[in-house]
């Protein structure tokens, strides 16, 4: 076989001059394609609203999330000015839901940030250095991969306590493994691209190549997995809550609300329905965004775009 492998008949023709008008970066093109995906774009807007609501919870929530009214417990929605009723301690479910949103988003984003940081350090390091460093790091990753994820979360929460911070760390640290593998795979892939070789031939150093050239081009897939991992982290918190290891009260969290609500599921279904609905919508929004991102960055899907 010779080196003259012409590109297979790939319908999108890089030589064509049709797209000369709009100057776009890789990310820019992804964004353009992403915008065309109505579901994903809608989800993004919804997410924006959620973030605003979460940030504005102290102003938006009609009541404090801790304030109890022992005479007005387990009220049905729309009674006594409680939009979604009250819980077993007479606290306003709606207000608690808004604050839970805050907790959830905080956990989702922060935990993934932790996971991503660890993953980037390990993945980039292993992928770029190769050799012994890589086998060592990847063996470690493989071992961690064989661990049940939630064992880690459970033990870490136990060690660090049920604070939001601890739960973020617990979920983040338990979740870096897949990301690290992905980063490494990306690095290995990109490392073999000619432009990395080209950068080396120019005299660019290893770190600079990794940070300036490999990382930006690995961002697409990472963005995708991250947007899937964020709802994963939110779900993980609710799972911990199910085991009695979620965020400690009185800080409201969806996991806690769902667990509490499940207790009253037959007599007062509204207690579980409302948080569960918002929880599911949030998780779904992230998923749709992730899906949209994947389609936007996956060049093999281009023909459908």
């Amino acid at each position, binding site marked *: 076989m010779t080196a003259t492998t012409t590109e297979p008949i790939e319908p999108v023709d890089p030589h064509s001059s049709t797209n000369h008008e709009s100057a776009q970066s890789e990310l820019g093109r992804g964004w353009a394609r992403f915008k065309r995906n109505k579901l994903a774009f809608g989800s993004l807007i919804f997410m924006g609203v959620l973030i605003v609501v979460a940030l504005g919870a102290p102003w938006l929530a009609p009541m404090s999330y*801790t*304030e*109890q009214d*022992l*005479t007005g*417990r*387990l009220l049905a929605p729309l009674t006594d000015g409680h939009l979604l009723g009250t819980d*077993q*301690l007479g606290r306003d479910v709606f207000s608690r839901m808004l604050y839970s949103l805050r907790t959830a988003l905080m956990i989702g984003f922060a935990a993934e940030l932790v996971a991503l940081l660890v993953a980037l350090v390990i993945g980039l390091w292993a992928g770029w250095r190769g050799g012994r460093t890589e086998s060592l790091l990847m063996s470690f990753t493989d071992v961690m991969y064989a661990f049940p994820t939630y064992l880690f979360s459970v033990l870490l*929460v*136990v060690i660090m*306590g*049920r604070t939001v911070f601890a739960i973020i760390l617990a979920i983040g640290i338990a979740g870096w493994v897949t990301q690290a593998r992905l980063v490494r795979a990306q690095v290995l892939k990109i490392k073999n691209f000619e432009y990395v070789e080209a950068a080396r031939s120019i005299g660019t150093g290893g770190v600079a190549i990794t940070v300036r050239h490999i990382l930006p081009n690995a961002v697409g897939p990472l963005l995708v997995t991250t947007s899937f991992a964020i709802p994963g982290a939110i779900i993980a918190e609710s799972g911990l809550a199910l085991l*009695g*290891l979620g965020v*400690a*009260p*009185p800080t409201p969290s969806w996991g806690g609300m769902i667990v509490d609500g*499940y*207790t*009253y*599921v*037959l*007599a*007062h279904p509204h207690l579980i329905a409302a948080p569960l609905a918002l929880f599911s919508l949030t998780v779904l929004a992230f998923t749709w965004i992730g899906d949209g991102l994947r389609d936007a960055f996956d060049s093999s899907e281009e023909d459908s775009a």
Partner: protein
Amino acid sequence: GSDDGGSADNNDDSGAGGSGDEPQRGGTLRQSMLPVTLLDPAVNANYSFGQIMMIGLWEGLVVADANDPIQVVPGVAESWDISGDGLIYTFHLRGEARWSNGDPVTANDFEWNWKRILTPGIAGESSPSYNRDRISVVGAADYMNGEIDDFSSVGAKAIDDATFELTLEKPDPDFLIYLSQFWALPLHPATVERLGDGWLDPENWVSNGAYVLDEFRVNLGAVLLPNDHYWDKDNYYIDRWEITFNDGGTTADLLSYQSGDLDITGRIEDDLEAVTTSDVADELMSSGTNQYRHLIALNSRHPALHDIKVRKALALAVDREALGGVGKPAIPGKSLVPGDVEGSDEVPGVEYDLEAAQNLLAEAGYPDGEGMPTITILDFQTSPWVEAIAEMWRKNLGLNVVLDIVELGVYSEKLNVPVHPEDYVGFMVTNNSVQPPTVVGAAYNNLQPIRTYGMNLSPPEAVDDILDELGADVDTAQIAAKLDGKRHPEVEQAVELAREALAQTDPEARTSLAIEAAIARDESYVSIPALWGGYFLLVKPRVQNLKPWFHTSVMSTKGVWIKQ
């Protein structure tokens, strides 16, 4: 000596169903409980559920009376004599008592079992079910400690096949009640000797109770079938007793119960509220209230809680009527002696008095809560009533209150801290019972080991001195001894009174001293009582004639029948 014996026939008492129908034979009783890990009465079985099964599988000399919590009725012993000085108990075994393999139950079997219970290493010296602090059979403690090896010097002897004798060190009016508890149930000596641990296998099962074990699966459940050789089998109507183990929480059980998969469940304690708000609330059965939920002050270097005025203010600021609403079906509990305990009406307890509380706090130097440290409430699970108390303190006293809900392991570690630092000031949440349900039983609670019972509210320096003196690895009893005289005076008094009460042999004096001790304990405000409750079961109406034995949280199936 007097013969308290007599045949107990509970059948004529109406049970849960409240109908006067003739009992019907047959049917399966399906019950759910926390997983039982081990069915050896001699080894510590902390879970009441295990005891429910044990009480069905074996029969001791005497049996608790379902109708009167502080009385016993004959079991294997048809009758018994008590010597005039109250020290020697002679039990006359009934001739028709049989093991499930047909062997007769003899006094030698009991002697063998007593030896087993007391032998170090078999039952496990670290977890004796036999409580040497409270039951004082001659020589038993020494034998257990390994100080004597000759069992013949222990006061537990078979006189002949049908006569068994126990000798006490000092008279104890509650002795028979203790004896009715699960730890005194007899194993079949021959089987245990032949099989070792294999006796636990359902295939090899031999016991002398109303049931035999047909199936036992870890974490899953057990099946009990009637024992054909049981002498009183006519009073047991159920064909099959199916037990499922559930560690999945209340809701799961409640749903099973509601959809008709279960007849009885006791797995509802975590979230009684879910039950009381459900449509099966009226099927909830409760034993008498001999439990109390309270907050115990933790020792801290911060002076606030060392001031009785502050503690009293906190106790007075709790609106127990409101708590009763949150903690249903538990009821407001104003004292550390629950309402159904004999003599409790003489203990006045704490009343809600907001004004007094605010004044006290001001007097102590914290007007409107100013200057008070953050109060932490330590717990390992969330309970609405605790959150409610926190909110009351915040609202009524202007305090900063946080809940420190931690995982059980962390909880246990925090309890092990003898003195918390300045910034950790607060209480732990706990639930205790008075056993036996008498004020004298309550007096025992005054003497409980320090770290779990908060009687160590002593000046931190005193605690430090003791720890320095004793080193790190000392047991709680030693510390308790060293603490004498160094506690805060109000605490000291409560301990002293309890000691006196227990040392008394005269029942009347004993009771009145115990009442004084209980009042002293309440008034030391080391524990803040909140709620009283009993042991709760959800029981389907078709299950007739069921009576929980409230003082041991156990129920018996004697006389229980299922309406088809």
